[in-house]
């Protein structure tokens, strides 16, 4: 069967929703599943909780936000499971948001004692506690993209600040908000692994990023989908956030 044939089974794996689902992160899975279904694919959503193995058959793996204790439990379970490493080796796409982004990095810290926790090392990034919590709307410009798709819009809420090592590229450049560590960069990319702070959830507000993930996983381009309500939401968010930011300055 040709890989492009409609009806092809595509599996989206939502990892540890009970631990890493704080900010509507389930929505990223909903968006991917629907965008596949609307194009005639046969999408399958697999929700995995700690104690159950990650499937080795997934095309896209999703990690979301969570509190400190949940983050530690999740990273331990993922390392013990090993499935995410195998998935990345296979070329599956990974989207790691907020706490999930910190988890796939080298290390992150938790609590006021700044206990250092080992991450999965899938992205060459390191997270430590920042001077002020980053809470608010964020707009960034997706590096290497142009047109309307280049603007990434979301809501960030994180106490950790993330610095990129030489083996990771920033996903985007911050226009409004904090991003990685107030250094003008947002998110990180390495191969098929993408880490980012904004939720919202991020794929609902940025359908081009959703399709990019699917294209990474499937290895070919997808035909565009036009949804007027998503376009309108993006226009509204970008305009309102820019306006309120201009007023504050």
């Amino acid at each position, binding site marked *: 069967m040709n890989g492009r044939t409609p009806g092809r089974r595509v599996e989206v794996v939502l990892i540890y929703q009970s631990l890493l689902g704080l900010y509507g992160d389930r929505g990223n899975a909903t968006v991917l599943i629907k965008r596949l279904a609307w194009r005639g694919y046969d999408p399958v959503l697999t929700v995995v909780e700690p104690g159950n193995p990650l499937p080795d058959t997934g095309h896209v793996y999703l990690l979301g936000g969570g509190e400190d*204790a949940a983050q530690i439990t999740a990273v331990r379970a993922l390392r013990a499971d090993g499935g995410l490493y195998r998935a990345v080796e296979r070329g599956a796409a990974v989207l790691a948001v907020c706490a999930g982004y910190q988890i796939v990095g080298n290390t992150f810290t938790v609590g006021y004692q700044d206990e250092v926790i080992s991450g999965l090392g899938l992205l060459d990034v390191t997270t430590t506690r920042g001077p002020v919590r980053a809470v*608010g709307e964020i707009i960034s410009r997706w590096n290497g993209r142009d047109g309307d798709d280049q603007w990434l819009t979301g809501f960030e809420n994180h106490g950790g600040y993330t610095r990129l090592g030489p083996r990771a590229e920033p996903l985007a450049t911050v226009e409004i908000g904090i991003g990685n560590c107030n250094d003008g960069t947002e998110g990180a990319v390495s191969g098929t692994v993408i880490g980012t702070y904004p939720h919202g*959830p991020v794929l609902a507000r940025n359908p081009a990023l959703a399709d990019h993930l699917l294209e990474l996983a499937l290895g070919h381009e997808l035909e565009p989908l036009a949804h007027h309500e998503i376009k309108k939401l993006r226009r509204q968010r970008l305009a309102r956030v820019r306006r309120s930011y201009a007023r504050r300055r």
Partner: protein
Amino acid sequence: MSISTARLTAATFAGRVAGAASRLARQGTGASIRGKVMLKVDPGALGKLLAGKRIAVVSGTNGKTTTTHFLAAAVRASLGSHADRLVHNADGANLHHGLASALSGHPEADIAILESDERVVGDVIRLGRPEVLVLLNFSRDQLDRHHEIKSLGRSWRTALAGAGPSGPVVVANADEPLVVWAALAAKQVIWVDTSTTWTQDSSLCPECDSTLIRIQPDAASGLVGDWYCSGCSLARPKGDYRVESGTIVDRSQQVWDPQLSVPGVFNVSNAACALAAAELLGVDPRTALRGMRTVTSPAGRFATAQFGTTTARLLLAKNPAGWAEALPLAQTQTVILAIDSAAADGRDVSWLWDVDYERLAGRKVIATGRRAQDLAVRLRYAEVDYRCIPDLAAALADHSEPVDVIATYTPFQRLRRMGRV
């Protein structure tokens, strides 16, 4: 008159003036500004106003306004013609200034039934030495402000431990692990098995961070829900009261049909907690329930209002747990959903993706409020038919059939003013 009392008198007077000015300027009831001015003039006002009263306090993420109304109505029923002995912050203003405002409005009252914001519980325990404290539930809400719900639970636990033997008797929801963990610090706890089914906000043990094991209740087979920690001894306590198929079973195993005037299984759970609290205050269950049945639309919740020719019932939902309760209640063919992201709603609307809007498929939905477009995208992905009418008045206009409206906090308050309920 002592200096302390004089300052409170001056604060109360200044507060009244500010409140009246606010009402004249049509900025709401004036309760909030009245309390703010009072606390400015006398920062010790809340402690002084609480002193010498018998106090019961209700807190939790969802249901505190309704539960406080239940408890106040139960106690009022027992007071008969002396109902003015009771003061209650009925409008739901539950921060320091809201409490001060309500208390100063009825200085002669010697019984206070107060709903308290989750963050204020510790101060009320320290300042007011309440007799009874009802702890309902914890769930994610306004995450842009409260980053960790566990820290709220910890503040309750610390305040209860600090109060020691002079602390309140706690009425606590046995189905909520974080509530249980906090309540265990109290000198005495009455557990209520509420049959809560919302579990998405407690997956780790508050004591040791191990994974919690859960058994979901199943009404059909009669299976009772349960939870316990996989790593330590924390487990669901056995309920002194319990909710069972819409009835309340009390401590002496007597079964009560609550026959409430407000809808929803969750309100039976709220009533069970209020009933337990009322008994602690010396009100017998029959009298308590008689009072509770008079509660019809606490602070506008479940009220039916007229908007021009449209008849609408108003439901409040502030977070995913609240939406999980409110959505099944919305039964009309057209349902209006009002979303905003003002400070009181939480500025982050990502929670829209944790709500099961898919269950509205087949009905007509009108998305309204300042964040209607975010809801429109959510409904698109839920494959629910909708129209997006951001203006509230326009969304409510000209419905020939009654409509149910579910709103977040800010549009809910606006709808109450528009519909005068």
